[in-house]
């Protein structure tokens, strides 16, 4: 009895041994099941007035979602824009701000990380600026730039610069000492050491910084756009003014989905540079 029990337990622990990836299948069933329960609860609750007045039913929301997805690109002026256009506007702002931030943060992070003195000396600035809410920069941006578009990009820039900067300088400062000793004993030049050893060694850290920054940029853009003119954030704000809740839910879902896609891109890239290291 005891023997057979321990046998079956050890078999369960080994995923290659269990019949037909049962763990994945069960996880999928759990996902589908809980989704059905959630939608049913929502549908019945909304129909029977269980929630606040005006909460749409699940079917109504899904219907709207389907409509917005199938009609993504129409343009009837800034207050009636297809969700595809809004999404592209938001993505464009994120892309510009994020790229600018990365172009500054990665080289700067490398420079700071290489020198222990710079690392300690600049740490105070970074730690002070990092926790500032992105929206706190908004009035400043509007005042300096006098342009809502540029302000949006500026806010993305200023809030997505820190994680990349911190992770890059951390990665560079903590490159395995032995790799550097190898380069040193071979008499490698400083530049060769930086490009052939330090940067590849720090790449997992740099990428995880870029990944966190991307997440933050996507978080920030929606909030910033509520106060600007167009984009997904403005779409939500506009629907709030129209007091049409299903569209707000649609936008929330799409924001989440796009965020997930962006994150998995970076997750895949991280896997590509790991080479057996656990970072």
């Amino acid at each position, binding site marked *: 009895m005891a023997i057979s029990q321990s046998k079956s337990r050890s078999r369960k622990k080994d995923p290659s041994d269990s019949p037909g990836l049962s763990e994945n299948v069960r996880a999928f069933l759990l996902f589908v099941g809980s989704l059905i329960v959630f939608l049913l609860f929502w549908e019945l609750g909304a129909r029977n007035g269980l929630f606040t007045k005006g909460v749409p039913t699940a079917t109504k929301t899904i219907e709207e979602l389907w409509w917005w997805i199938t009609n993504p690109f129409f343009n009837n002026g800034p207050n009636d824009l297809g969700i595809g256009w809004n999404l592209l506007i938001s993505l464009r702002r994120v892309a510009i701000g994020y790229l600018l931030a990365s172009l500054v943060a990665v080289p700067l992070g490398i420079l700071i990380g290489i020198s222990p003195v710079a690392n300690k000396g600049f740490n105070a600035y970074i730690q002070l600026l990092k926790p500032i809410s992105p929206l706190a920069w908004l009035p400043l941006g509007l005042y300096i730039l006098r342009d809502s578009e540029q302000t949006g990009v500026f806010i993305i820039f200023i809030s997505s610069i820190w994680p990349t900067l911190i992770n890059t300088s951390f990665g560079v400062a903590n490159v*395995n000492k*032995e*790799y550097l*000793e*190898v*380069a*040193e*004993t*071979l*008499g*490698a030049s400083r530049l*060769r050491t930086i490009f*052939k*050893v330090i940067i*590849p*060694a720090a*790449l997992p850290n740099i990428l995880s910084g870029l990944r966190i920054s991307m997440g933050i940029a996507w978080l920030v853009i929606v909030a910033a756009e509520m106060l600007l003119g167009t984009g997904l954030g403005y779409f939500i704000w506009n629907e709030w003014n129209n007091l049409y809740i299903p569209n707000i839910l649609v936008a929330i879902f799409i924001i989440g989905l796009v965020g997930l896609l962006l994150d998995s891109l970076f997750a895949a890239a991280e896997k590509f*540079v790991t*080479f*057996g*290291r656990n970072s």
Partner: protein
Amino acid sequence: MSATPLNLDQVTPMDGGSPTAQLSIRNVTKVFPGKKDIFSKLSRKTSKDFVAIENISLDIEPNTFVTIIGPSGCGKSTLLNMIAGLSSTTEGEILLNDRPIQGPGPDRGMVFQNYALMPWMTVEENIRFAVETVYPKRSPRDIQRTVTEHIQLVGLVGAEKKHPHEISGGMRQRVGIARALAISPQMLLMDEPFGALDALTRGFLQDEIERIWEQQRKTVIMITHSIEEALLLSDRIIMMTRGPAARVDEILDVPFPRPRNRETLDQHPAYHDLKAEMESHLFRETRAVEEARVRGR
């Protein structure tokens, strides 16, 4: 203490160093300075200077296999790092071919205990990186030939395109050895090269080193903890005292003929005497280290 340190025989008092020596270590002392700056004082984390090595003199003849053995923490790695040029001497100097060592250089190939292979480079790329760095003007074809030769030398044909995390520890260290040899250094420095390997792999790689050494006969300085390893591989064994302020206690000449074979090595009449002497030395030093630790320095 066992008699007078034998190294005095090698060091002639007048100008020091035997004229034929390839590497000459002269009165080298290494002190690691303690933390005494204002921030350390404020946080009460000041530390005293630490004398790792005190007044070591050694001469190493060309084409000899030298092993340094001693209790842990005796400054063996410190000494090797100074020879490699990764660390500077506090006092004294180290001469390589009568020129003082200023810093690291490709005339000394280094093999690291934890292999120190770049994980993002394949086996081949790791070796090529070394060759390209040392000989930037060589044609790609020449570089490739050197790389292939050394992959063959250490028996890694077929694993060229693998990354370090895909191969075993023993194979990784063979890449480490190939990389060190591929730059054709004058001497090979090995810091406990088999320390991270299991006993069987270790024995196998020792035989490989013996085989490669028979082919190339480069000067080798190797750090080890293993008495059998030292006896199997070396021509001379340098036994160091415990740190702090470690010194050379005794230098043993290993008279066994080459090529050596681990099965028949212990039939040599001198084997057991040498082994017993090393054991008693290491045992004595290690016990003193442990006692010092128990007393809290």
